[in-house]
C-alpha cells in the first residue's frame, strides 16, 4: 500500500494520519506535513498511525525531525500503532521522543 499523509489542524493540534509504508521514498511527504504543522505553531502533534504498516529507518528519522522542528515543548503523540511499528520504534530507541497512545485522548492531547 502506498504511503499517504493527511494533515489537518484543529484546536491548535496538528493531526496527521499516516497510512502505508513510511520509508526513504515516502519520508519527504511526511516531513512536508511536519513543516506545515510547525509553521502553524501547534502545541501538539497527533500522529494517527493505525493504518501505518511499516516504518523504515528514514521514517524513524522523520519522527526525530518532527521533534526537532517543533521544539521540545511540543508533544508528539503516536496513536493506535500496529505492534510491529511500535516494536521498531522501541528497539531503535526512538520512543524517547514521543508518547504512545492507544487512541486519541483529547484531554491529554488538547488539554481539554
Amino acid at each position, binding site marked *: 500500500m502506498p504511503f499517504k499523509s493527511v494533515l489537518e489542524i484543529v484546536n491548535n493540534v496538528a493531526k496527521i494520519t499516516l497510512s502505508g509504508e513510511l520509508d*526513504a521514498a515516502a519520508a519527504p511527504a511526511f516531513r512536508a506535513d511536519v513543516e506545515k504543522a510547525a509553521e502553524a505553531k501547534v502545541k501538539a502533534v497527533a500522529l494517527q498511525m493505525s493504518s501505518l504498516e511499516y516504518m523504515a*529507518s528514514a521514517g*524513524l*528519522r522523520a519522527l526525530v525531525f518532527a521533534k526537532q522542528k517543533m521544539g521540545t515543548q511540543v508533544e508528539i503523540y503516536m496513536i493506535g500503532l500496529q505492534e510491529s511499528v511500535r*516494536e521498531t520504534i522501541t*528497539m531503535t530507541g526512538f520512543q524517547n521522543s514521543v508518547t504512545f497512545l492507544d487512541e486519541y485522548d483529547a484531554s491529554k492531547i488538547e488539554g481539554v
Partner: protein
Amino acid sequence: MDRIDTYPTHVYNEFNMRPGRPYPFGATPVPGGINFSVFSHHADYCVLVLFKKGEARPFAEIPFRGMFTRPGTAEPFWGDFRIGNVFSMVVFDLNYEEIEYGFRMGASQPKVERGKPGLHRFDTSQVLLDPYARAIGGRDVWGQTPDWDKPYPHRGRIVYDDFDWESDRPLEIPTEELVVYEMHVRGFTRHPSSGIKHPGTFAGLREKIPYLKELGVNCIELMPIYEFDEFEGSRTHPETSERLFNYWGYSTVGFFAPKAGYAATGSAQDGTMVADELMTLVKDLHKNGIEVMLDVVFNHTAEGNEFGPTISFRGIDNVTYYMLTSDGYYFNFSGTGNTLNCNNPVVRGMVLDALRYWAAEYHIDGFRFDLAAILGRDQNGAPMLNPPLLEVLAHDPVLAKCKLIAEAWDAGGLYQVGSFPAFGRWAEWNGKYRDTLRRWIKGEGGLVSELALRLQGSPDLYASRGPTASINFITCHDGFTLMDMVSYNDKHNEANGENNNDGANDNNSWNSGWEGETEDPEIKTLRFRQVKNAFALLMVSQGVPMLLMGDEMGQTQHGNNNMYCHDNEISWLDWNLLEKNPGLFRFFKNCIAFRQEHQVFHNRWHLHSQDYMGSGYPDISWHGVRSWQPDWSEQSLMLGFMLDGKHARGGLGEDNSIYVFTNTYWEGHDVELPRLPEGQRWHVFANTGAPETEDVWEPGTEPALSDQSNLFVGARSVVILVAK
C-alpha cells in the same frame, strides 16, 4: 548556501554521477547521492555493482572508468573516477534504504584457481564486499539458513549516520575503577529463561541493563559484534546431528559493520536500523554508568586460506591485505588460515579507520584486541620491537581516551604477556594472573611469592606501566566457567565433534573430589566455596578485574572448555540459576560493591611495601598465621595482606584499611590479626568458610569481630576484613 558539487557531471545509462571523494572510504550519503570510494593498489578495473535489496541479479553495474556522456547530451567522453589507488564516485538519486552494493575488480594477471597459491586473486566474475561497508546484509536473522546458491552472500548496505546521541559521550571511567563483565551478546539473553521480549539481541541486552546495574559492573566487554558468518565452518555433529555454528564470531567479514543477526531489527534488512539499535544500547548503557568495550579481531578474516571463500579483501587486493609467503601461500599466525597484513600501511590505515569509526560513531569506550601479538609482526611475520600499528593506535587523537587491551599472544607462538609493546597506553589480558590464581585456588604449593605479585597488579610484569596494565581474570570465554573450574579436572569437549582434541589441556582446575555433576553435599559446598574464594581474590587484587558472564550465578558448560561452536542451552546463560544460587549472586554483587567502595583497590601505580604517609603501616604488608610473619616457603598455602587506608591511591585517597587472608590448606587455622590503631576495630566483610547466610555482608553493614586478635580461617577459605 547550496553546495556546488551536488550536480551530476557524468551520465552512464540512466545514472547521474560525478567524480567522488576518496575520503572517507566506503559508501557515504552525500547531498543527492552516495559517494562510493574503494582502494586497490593492484586492480586496474573497478565496477560498482548495485542490487535491489535481496535480489540475486544486480540492477546496475557502473564502471569507475570508461565512456560516459554529459548530462543532457549524447556526446561520449572518457572518464576516470580515480585518484591515486582509490576509485571514487558519487551516484545520484539512489534510494539508500533499498540498495545493496559491491564491486568487481580486475587486473591483467591471470586468474588463480581456488586452492592454488597466488599473490593476486582478481576475478571479475566475483562481486566483492566493500571492506568499509558500514552495514552488511546476508545474515540478517541469526541462524536462518542462507540460500547457498545466491551469488554475493555478504552485501554492502548504506548507513545513514545521523543518530541522535543527545548529550551522550564515552564515559571515560578511570581504568583502575573498572569492573569488566565479558559477555556474548546472543548467549546473554537467548535462553528462554531470560524472560525478555527480544532474546539474543542488542535490544535484549538493553532490557537487561537493570540486572547489570544491580550486579554492579561498570563495563561490559562484548565478544565479537563485527559482522561475521555464523555459518562459517558450520557442520552437523556426527553423532547428535546437531547443527554446530561459528557461535563466538572470531572471524570477521566486515570491520565496520555490526552483526546484523544480533539486532532484533535485523529482519527489516535495514542497515541504518541495525546501527540505531546498537547505538541505542550504547547510549542507554552509558546513561546507567556502564562502559562498552568491544572484543575486536584484526588478526585474520573470514576468507580463510587459498581454499576459503572470496568475500572481499582477497579479491580487492590480496597481496596488500594478507601476509603471504613469497610463493603466494597464506601465513597462518592466527590458526584460522590467514593473517591480516596489519603492518602494511594501507591495512594499518583501515584498522585505525575502523577503530576511530567505532569510537566516534558508536561511542565505544575501549577495545580488546584478539591475538594482538600478531599486530606487532612485520609483513613477513617477524615480531617488531616498535610496531607502527600499535604505536599509531596508542597515540591516535580520536582513540586517546579509549581503553586499549591486548590479548598479548598469538597462535604462532608469540607470547608477550608483560612485554607487549605498550607505548604507555596498552593494557593486557594477564594470562599469568589467571594461571597463578587457578593453581593457588586448587591448592598447589610453591606459589605464595608469585601470588603476592599477582595480587599487587603484577609489578614484575608491569613495573613501569602500573597495575592498570593488568586485566586480571580467572575465567573468560576461552576455557572453563568458574563453576566448571571447580567441578572438572579435564575438558569434556565431545559435543564439539572433534573427539575432544580441541580446547586447552592445561586448565589448572580441580574437580573438588568428583568429576562433574554430583549430589554429594560436601563436594557441592566446597565447589561454591572455591568459586567464592576465586572471586573474592579477584576483587581484592590491584589491577582491573574481569569476570565472565554467568559466573555470578554458577553457569556451567558441563566441562566443555571451548564453546565456540555451540548455539544452544550449553552456551546460553541459564537465568534459572539466579533463583537456584541466590547466595552466589549475593556474594558476587557484594564483592563488586565492596571493591567499588574502597579506594585501596584503585591504585594507579604500584604499591611500595613502605610507609610513605607516616601512618605507621606500609601501603601493603604481608602476614601469615602470625601477623607480620608471612610464610614465603615452598610449602606455604596461606597468605595474608593488609592494605593501609591512608595509602589509598598513592596517598591521595582516604579509605579504610583492609585485611585479606587466603588459606588453601585442607584444614582451618587460627590466624593472628594485625593490630589496628587505637579506636579502630576489624569488621568482617566476607568469610567464605562461614555458612552462606553469613559469608558476605552488604558494604557498610559489616559486623565487628568479637576477638580482635585472632581469627579462625576455615579450610580452603578467604576472609576479608575492614577496619572501622
